[in-house]
């Protein structure tokens, strides 16, 4: 998929960080907030404007878990698999979600770009374990059945 990039928006982001190459992580975060992933065409543009090689930007983007080079779903569901959630059975929830959406470890996003399912390291909401988040909203004390209900609700919203 070829994403149409509005470079004026990228310029605005760069402006916000005064074109400082040390702010590349924040710049990528803001870019991702815009497109829900990091479109390939952004890289050479950032490289030119910030004076760092595209390979370097790519190296930073692939180091950090939160960056995605693939388009993500409208709803990003993150299942916490920190220790507390793990011992309170978070994996069956993950399996249920993947199964109902036809996803797997290697395929995180549905073809209609509606849902992305991934695990996340501890969200620090251990008291509510097991938890998951949908676009940063926390859902506490989940079970596989509750997850199914949640999916149904999200689908209905559309």
């Amino acid at each position, binding site marked *: 998929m070829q994403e149409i990039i509005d470079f004026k928006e990228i310029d605005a982001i760069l402006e916000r960080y005064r074109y400082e190459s040390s702010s590349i992580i924040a710049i990528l975060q803001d870019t991702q907030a815009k497109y829900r992933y990091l479109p*390939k065409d952004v*890289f050479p543009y950032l490289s030119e404007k910030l004076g*760092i*090689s*595209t*390979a*370097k*930007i*790519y*190296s930073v983007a*692939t*180091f950090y878990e939160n960056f995605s*080079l693939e388009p993500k779903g409208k709803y990003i569901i993150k299942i916490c698999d920190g220790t507390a959630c793990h011992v309170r059975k978070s994996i069956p929830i993950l399996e249920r979600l993947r199964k109902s959406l036809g996803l797997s470890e290697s395929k995180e996003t549905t073809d209609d770009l509606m849902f992305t399912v991934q695990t996340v390291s501890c969200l620090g909401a251990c008291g509510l374990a097991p938890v998951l988040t949908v676009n940063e909203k926390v859902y506490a004390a989940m079970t596989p059945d509750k997850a199914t209900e949640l999916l149904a609700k999200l689908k209905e919203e559309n």
Partner: protein
Amino acid sequence: MSMEFMLIDNMPVEIAGEANILSLIRKAGIDLPTFCYYSELSVYGACRMCVVEDKWGEIHAACSTPPKAGMEVRTNTPRLRKYRKMILELLLSNHCRDCTTCEKNGKCKLQELAQRFGIKQVRFSNTSEESDMDTSSLCISRDKSKCILCGDCVRMCEEVQNVGAIDFAFRGSKMCVSTAFDEPIANTKCVGCGQCAAICPTGAIVVKNDTARLWKELSNKDTKVVVQIAPAVRVGIGKEFGLPEGENVMGRVVAALRRIGFDEVFDTSTAADLTVLEETGEFLGRLQKGGVFPLITSCCPAWIRYAELNYPELLENISTCRSPMQMFASVLKEHYKHSNRKVVSVAIMPCTAKKHEAAREEFQENGIPYVDYVITTQELIQMIREAGIVFSEIEPEAVDMPFGATSGAGVIFGVTGGVTEAVIRRVSDDKSVSALRAIAFTGVRGMQGVKETSIAYEGRQIKVAIVSGLKNADDLIRKMKKGEAHYDFIEVMACPGGCVCGAGQPFTNAEGKKLRGAGLYDADRMSNIKRSEENPVIMALYGGLLKGKTHKLLHVHYHRKA
């Protein structure tokens, strides 16, 4: 001042400003193993092979531990041996083990250390990936499956060459060295300098090997294969055959090439003399007519590529002189244009980027390149071995006529500052021996990355800078652009130290590089002709073949790419 000592394996070793105990340990004559330590690169500290044990049983990586007076370390305890073996086993468990068919066979650091530490068995299942080749570049080939992630190439590309075509991607066990989005390297800003391949301890990045195609050409009876040998080759090849590092073995190379089957053998130094005359002419011309300054040399193809990709606006500063290799190639094409056999032009070069230069469209006529094959010193070594030639016993021979004469000025092209020195010899009015010697002491010689000098010419001072290593070149350009520095003439060589340290040469350390440079200066000293303009071949060429054709055959205009 009192001397400070450290105890290394119970031997007192004097601390003399070493940055880390690894240098001190090596100074003590102990070959501590490493994959990722090179004094010219930043300390990375990732391979953990250089671990040592202090008297309290603490483990330190020698590469990143500064020496301290009174410190005691051991380099070879049972614990350390166990750790080193385990690290090697871990690396091997994740590495292709088809050593016999590897380009790096016999020169691979991993292979060498596995042998040295007696690794006979790897106790883990082999999880190495399928071979994953990138052959897009004309200069180097990459195979990710052979990478041990020491990061040497990454640091070389970024810190020394300022190119940054490759970097680490991903993390943990998925980490790899990659271009952005894993694009073929040829589509990146790679300049083909090959320094990554030179420093790679394994077969993950190697110089593109074109010998197979060349052998075919050599066995073809209908072709006439002519070859030129770059200056740096003669001092970079001997060590591989048991001769001292840096020894000038030009005569043996010539003899070996004849035995391999080359029909005519020439010396690129001859064309370097042409370059000196043309470039000096261009420089003086710009001085008189008021051209663009500084004039920047054009011999180095990796530098040309770097400028094209990063500073296209500087292309007009770059001399229009073709590189000596290309000058010679055009002269040879012209010379043999009535030959009844198909002439194949080969160049033996210390350089990987020359492979790319030879394929440039500026150096082709009707789709046929002036230079058909560029073979690096390393590939030549392989050919000599393959042919069964006992190099150390071969009798030296002279190059062929009619291009048989060279000057000392042309020979020193192979080391940083050589081009400049040759040009100064040309412009200098004083042709005495003492004047010649004085030039050598103006600051043009030495292996440092940035050198500056100024010469008097017709009542004015000409400011000269000599840089090797593209990071040094880039820094200089930035300074110039900011107005912090001003020069009239700049010599740029992409490889630190110049062509003797080219990536096509066998890998050597800093000491070896120095010896190679010294070898070329020796050759100059022994040479009867010191100045390019005194080379009779050159004079003959200007009077004959080149008459009215100097521009067509010796110059080129690089254009900005859209």
